[in-house]
């Protein structure tokens, strides 16, 4: 299923003076085959780095806690993000609310390496996402299907992830979203330009990006799994479905032995095709995060439906 991402793809239509899409999409490529872990303080960031995380996501509350505590979830305190940036040498990402371009300006000014315009936080705009091209800092955005992914890339996202259902420890939604993207991409096969224009209209996505996706037979930027990954097997499942790497949010620091589980998930993402390694790293990990069964979750509590 996994198709190669050509070395220059996505750049020619997006690259321009001053926005330098090659550099933005390039960092995402450097993260491939890696695990990006949610951390809430410097101590957790160091544990993640020591476990082999390719990057960390700095945030005040992991999604599981946002669910429990409720209220409006916003960008984290910049001071806390800076402390994490000082504690580790790997890239540090941070989340901004959907459409909240001022939070993005603030995150850019403190020098984070990637911004996640994230449905896990409470959306700040009912209709608009952030115009991401003018920023120097690259963006990652969530998607449930191809149309959503290409709309975000059209706005300037240099990296995509599945939305999944964050903070549940239930991988079913991440799988649903990845399978939907794969199915949508497969559906473009063999279509001529006229047919692709119709599909672009149906998907609500820019024609140029739809055409590029049809040529590449995959998303034109790096695509990670996110939302509900809790075990090494979950991570390898998403990799075998064609993801380029994995975000793990609540799954690590809400488990019994975070350091061990983090190491295991890192090994699982590298050796995702080798069941022997997967068996080995899955042994004796202690308790996984308790988890919420998404099927039994009321619609109003779902985060993945946020975003337009």
């Amino acid at each position, binding site marked *: 299923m996994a198709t190669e991402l050509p*070395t220059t793809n996505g750049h020619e239509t997006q690259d321009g003076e001053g926005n330098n899409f090659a550099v933005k999409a390039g960092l995402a490529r450097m993260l491939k*085959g890696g695990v990006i872990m949610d951390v809430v303080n410097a101590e957790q960031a160091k544990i993640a*780095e020591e476990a*082999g995380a390719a990057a960390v996501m700095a945030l005040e509350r992991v999604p599981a806690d946002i669910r429990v505590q409720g209220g409006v979830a916003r960008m984290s305190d910049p001071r806390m993000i800076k402390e994490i940036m000082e504690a580790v040498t790997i890239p540090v990402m941070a989340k901004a609310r959907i459409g909240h371009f001022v939070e993005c300006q603030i995150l850019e000014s403190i020098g984070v390496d990637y911004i996640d315009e994230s449905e896990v936080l409470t959306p700040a705009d009912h209709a608009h996402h952030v115009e991401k091209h003018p920023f120097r800092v690259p963006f990652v955005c969530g998607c449930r299907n191809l149309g959503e992914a290409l709309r975000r890339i059209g706005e300037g996202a240099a990296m995509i992830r599945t939305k999944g259902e964050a903070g549940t420890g239930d991988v079913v939604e991440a799988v649903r979203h990845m399978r939907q993207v794969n199915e949508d991409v497969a559906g473009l096969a063999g279509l001529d330009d006229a047919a692709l224009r119709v599909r672009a209209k149906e998907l609500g996505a820019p024609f140029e990006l739809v055409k590029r996706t049809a040529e590449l037979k995959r998303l034109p930027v790096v695509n990670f799994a996110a939302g509900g990954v809790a075990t090494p097997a979950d991570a390898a499942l998403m990799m075998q479905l064609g993801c380029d790497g994995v975000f793990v949010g609540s799954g690590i620091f809400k488990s019994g032995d975070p350091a061990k589980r983090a190491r295991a998930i890192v090994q699982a993402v590298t050796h995702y095709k080798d069941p022997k390694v997967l068996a080995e790293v899955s042994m004796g990990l202690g308790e996984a995060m308790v988890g919420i069964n998404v099927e039994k979750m009321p619609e109003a509590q779902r985060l993945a439906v946020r975003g337009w």
Partner: protein
Amino acid sequence: MTSPSRTLTVGVLALQGAFSEHVQLLRQAAQILGESTKPDINGSGNGNEGALNWRFGEVRTPAELAVCDALILPGGESTTMALVAARSGLLEPLREFVKVYRKPVWGTCAGLILLSESANRTKKGGQDLIGGLDVRVERNHFGRQCESFTADLDLPFLSATAAGVTPTSNSGKPAKPFRSVFIRAPIVEKILPHHTDGIQKEEAERDDTIVAPSKLPRDETARKAVSANVEVLARLPAGAVTLTPKGKTAREMGEEGAIIAVRQGNVFGTSFHPELTGDARIHVWWLEQVLDAVRKAE
């Protein structure tokens, strides 16, 4: 009619990072090489070489490494790669590949860090290095992602090879500068003296600097390659422009002339990412170097 064919296997370390990009460019490079150098190879006196085949593969295990004649260490996160290598039983085999057998190796960005004998600005508690290049690198030299940039490089070493005549010129000279991408890139801060037996002791005594462990080369050919001089192959041009707000040039930042490509015998390192362009010229050049080194070792 068929002469016995010869296969050279080039691996790309696939623990994490941009390994698939290297594999794609190696395939492109082999094709360019096949088209542009076949007459030469046929005329070189060894009849077997007309049927040279390249095989390219991802390396995640010691068994996959063992069949490689040469290796690329790609860009990615060097801390992640070092940790995963150690946990996958690959760190010692990699050190043997580079320092004991001294097979041809190329590291880009994170790969350059792993190949250096000394590195600073590593994570707290340091990280494992493979070593093989007598240099000190500084990680994340230019800063964070917002300080990442692209630059057009003049790379004189490309002009002497088949790489120089492709894809845009037939004149034997590089037709255009090499557009290269620097992402949270390291630079070579210092060229170190070679220690024939032992680690970089002076480096080990510096604060916040880590060194690679020592390994003895297995034979005279390996010893020669290990103790070759470190050559500077490229420096940062004055006009390179960063992504910072006002788009400062390398000259304005005082970074003009920073060392960004080195070679020591058959080990090559670049702080930038030739794998993020569609331009296979450096890969073509490097495969020629590999071929040369393999012949010398025989």
